[in-house]
């Protein structure tokens, strides 16, 4: 196995295990499954109360959005925690391929996001008025994979900012909550004021959710390919920005000797 591939897979896995240094089955279940479960129930009942769009709208919106919990928080912590726990200097002192180091951290987070999202849809199928044809599942999985990857790219960007910012977790929490508002999770994006809609359309998740709703409604993958490409492109832009920032902060921090200062 070449060094870069090893750093990508083994490094990513180690980082993921370190991320969950606090993890116990109880912690994982309550945080990654319990919280999404009640989020989906809360917004679906709120939708019912308001006579809104029907359960499927909220189940799909929130079912996809909860994957951002892994993508945003997980990725932010995976990068920013290196600094907080004092492991950033030894890590950056290694000659490891930076791209493999950086992207390898995303893979387990994406898989985790998929698990959380799958659980979200299961909640909708078992507890709420939501149904999904078996034939639509592969297309939906594809849409969710793209969306989770795109959200993880945003998480990478926040994590890179965490190499410099003092309190990046404030930002990642805020971003996660704002996604509930601007990404069409609970409100159709078209119903938002123009400036909020513009923000929503320029961040990950929005197009993925739109595609997921269409696919859950019976559309074929080809019908939503435009939305998917847009989601993927947005994710690509955020990932590129994140890597550039990561490298910039690495070089700058070495130059200023401020790698682990707060």
């Amino acid at each position, binding site marked *: 196995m070449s060094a870069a591939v090893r750093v990508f897979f083994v490094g990513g896995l180690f980082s993921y295990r370190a991320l969950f240094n606090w993890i116990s089955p109880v912690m994982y279940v309550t945080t990654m499954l319990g919280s999404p479960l009640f989020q989906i*129930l*809360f917004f679906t009942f709120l939708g019912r109360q308001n006579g*809104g769009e029907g359960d499927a709208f909220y189940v799909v919106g929130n079912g996809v959005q909860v994957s951002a919990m892994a993508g945003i928080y997980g990725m932010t912590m995976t990068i920013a925690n290196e600094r907080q726990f004092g492991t950033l200097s030894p890590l950056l002192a290694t000659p490891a391929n930076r791209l493999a180091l950086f992207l390898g951290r995303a893979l387990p987070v994406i898989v985790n996001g998929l698990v959380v999202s799958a659980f979200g849809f299961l909640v909708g199928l078992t507890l709420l008025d939501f149904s999904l044809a078996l034939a639509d599942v592969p297309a939906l999985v594809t849409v969710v994979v793209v969306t989770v990857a795109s959200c993880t790219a945003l998480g990478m960007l926040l994590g890179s900012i965490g190499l410099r910012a003092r309190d990046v977790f404030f930002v990642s929490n805020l971003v996660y909550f704002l996604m509930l508002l601007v990404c069409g999770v*609970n409100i159709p994006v078209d119903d938002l004021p123009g400036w909020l809609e513009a923000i929503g359309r320029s961040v990950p998740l929005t197009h993925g959710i739109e595609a997921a709703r269409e696919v859950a409604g019976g559309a074929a993958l080809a019908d939503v390919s435009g939305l998917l490409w847009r989601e993927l492109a947005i994710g690509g832009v955020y990932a590129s920005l994140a890597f550039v920032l990561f490298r910039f902060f690495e070089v700058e921090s070495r130059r200023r000797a401020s790698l682990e200062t707060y």
Partner: protein
Amino acid sequence: MHVARLFWVGWLFHLKSLLLSTFFLLISVLQPVIFASIAFFMWRTGSREGTLLDIALGAGLMGMWSSTLFGSGGAIQWQRWQGTLEILVAAPPRFLLTMLPLTLATATNGLYAIVATLFWGRVLFGVPLEFEQPLLFLLALPVTVLGLGLLGLVMASTFVLYRSASAFSNLLEYPVWLVTGLLVPVSLLPGWAEPLSWVLAPTWGVRAIRDAAHGTGDPLFAIGMCLLLAAVYLAIGTFTMANFERLARTRATLSLT
């Protein structure tokens, strides 16, 4: 006099600490405003009858619950991480008297959420801020703070003994928002949710505040229920705090993170 001073100084100290925390700024101001906005937009796109003032007040109470939940639960964990929990337990006053100002301060911090959502609603959505019974409204607010703060005391006591209890902080936010009728009427939920809502102070707090604001229902009854529950929480908290503290000392787990 000594107890009153301890309480006052402790409450003020913890309230100031919370106000300096960006995390509490997020959960007691920004998060409620975001959730209020979501509810406002959902209300606009839907066909529901109701008032925007209810949404603003409900979202404000959501923030108060988040502040209490993460503050009361997290405080024990933070004290543990910083190594000050043992010092607090070893201090001459009863541990309950040290923790009570903290949990009440976390609920008090939640008042920011109500102010924030009312202000936000007024400025951006034109929510009319007309209160039919302003005096009862002003009475309902501190009573709600008291009810939530003492519920926080019960939660905090479990955190003294069970280190993994912090995992439940994240879990308890949405269910309590849901089951106490802050934005969604309890009648929409399955039947078993209603008895559960009766033993949770936010149910009566939001009812008292809304009834006083609209001049409907019986705000005094809801205020009375909130006070009754506060007394029950205090009794439970006194018992559990003393016993859990003793058990944590016996098992030598107090400072284990």
